[in-house]
């Protein structure tokens, strides 16, 4: 973590004088501090309870191995759910990158817009199964935190891209017009 903190801090300093600092932090929010999860984010914090149950959640409906699942609105790559992982876990032998890109996807069941962190799993061959190319809100590398054409494998032993997860990291607050 300390290396990543340093890197992202430098990045933050470099970018801060010309772009929104809040936006930058939102991107850094995609990093993870071990399994303990997300540091304070400039997005509305969802309830802190961890999802450990595999029971179907009536509020989170969909097929996690299908491109049409609501969380995948900005995913570009192989679904980890088809690759030995799950919607929010990496396959055996891979490492989850702590730095990633973000999307904002609407959950049709509860009508809320969630911030989704698409953490890549790294270190194995490309999974090759369940390829999805969803691009809502995708942006060129001038805005890296919204770019899904990048291999998001940083701070991990190998940058070999394997598959992508889609992790709920918060609820998007309403846009102030």
């Amino acid at each position, binding site marked *: 973590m300390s290396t990543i903190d340093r890197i992202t801090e430098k990045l933050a300093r470099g970018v801060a004088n010309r772009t929104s600092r*809040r936006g930058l932090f939102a991107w850094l929010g995609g990093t*993870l501090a071990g399994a303990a999860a997300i540091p304070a984010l400039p997005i509305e914090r*969802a309830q802190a309870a961890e999802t450990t149950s595999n029971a179907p959640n009536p509020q989170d409906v969909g097929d996690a191995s299908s491109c049409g699942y609501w969380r995948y609105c900005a995913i570009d790559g192989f679904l980890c759910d088809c690759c030995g992982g799950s919607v*929010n876990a990496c396959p055996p032998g891979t490492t989850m990158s702590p730095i990633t890109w973000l999307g904002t996807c609407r959950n049709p069941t509860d009508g809320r817009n969630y911030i989704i962190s698409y953490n890549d799993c790294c270190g*194995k*061959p*490309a999974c090759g*199964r369940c390829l999805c190319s969803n691009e809502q809100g995708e942006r060129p590398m001038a805005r890296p935190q919204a770019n899904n054409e990048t291999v998001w494998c940083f701070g991990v032993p190998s940058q070999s891209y394997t598959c992508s997860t889609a992790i*709920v990291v918060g609820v998007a607050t309403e846009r102030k017009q």
Partner: protein
Amino acid sequence: MIGRWIGGALLAARLAAGVAEAQTFPNPLPIENAGTVTRLPTPYPDNWVFLDYLASPGLIDSKAELVNPDARYAKQVIGQFSASYYANILVGTARPEVYVAETFYSRGTRGTRTDVITLYDKETLSPRDEIVLPGAKRWVGVVQPNAFQFADHETLGLVYNFTPRSTVTVVNLVTRQVLNEVPLPGCAMIYPTGPRGFSSMCADGTMVSVQLDKEGAVATQNVTTAFNDLNDDPLFAAPGVIDGVSYFVSYKGKVHPVDLSGVAPRLLSTWSLVTDDEAKANWRPSGNQQIAGQLVGGAGRLYLLMQPNGKDGSHLEGGNQVWVLDVASHAKLATIMLKGQAQCIAVSGGEHPRLMATTLGASLQVYDAISGAPIASMPIASTGAETLIYPARP
């Protein structure tokens, strides 16, 4: 504003519509942990299998996959790992390890060549260790089981080399040490034999066999009489193995059982798996992995991928039916019709054995190995034919 900034696509209209729906679910979804990585139960269930691809996606960029051949998991794999450049895999049971004999170039297709055995942990599918094979001489060719084998209860790993000089590298898989290189002039492939040895098939139709000492040096050597008619009816390289007996079959369907449980190979009585009428119709075994041997309910069974109208050059085409034979009576017990043309078959062990076949349509077909009833059809990661199947609990 932040949501908008991040996603760039938040529509106020959608948010307004969402208010009513949100009242049904007063709390938003919980945030989730990141960083979770799946681990696997060991020993693996009886029915799991490894698929060893020749080129999926590429020869250098290839892999092996661990799959659950059940219809529920048709889209999923359990896990995967690299298996580079005509890699052969060996599934261990003595230790929770999988061994990959593979080859790397420092610049992908060029540069310095390095051959290694990579040892994977069965629970994490992470590399535990690596043994560098000296000389960059590992035989590379279409993946096949008998280029990389165990001996001495999985203590030794044996790697077939061809440069075009034939040798076998002897590796201690426990201490991770390379012990020796055994010359093998005019012979090929590796068939585990006796307490600590192996046999090979030779150009003159004989089988040569050696027993090794603790240091991997040749202790004893034996040669059989010639029994492999390489001119007119050669034996396929891979046998079906049941209870210490290796059942080799010829291109035309003759079965040559060889007892490899002792120090020297013992040639047993041959028989034909085709009747005279079937021979006239040129029913022949065919495929890349065209035979599987398995104990089913205590009885030895051979499963053979068969094709009609076989001819010179058709021996790798595969077929769309599997014959089930009893090794004691030589009787054909059943014919299992496959969905599609297969080139590789395998049969898992345990109480509910499965016949599995990889087909040209890039699927893994799964059948009850006793009743022949179809169980599942799953896409696999290769349109090519050469995808070997290895039961995860051999």
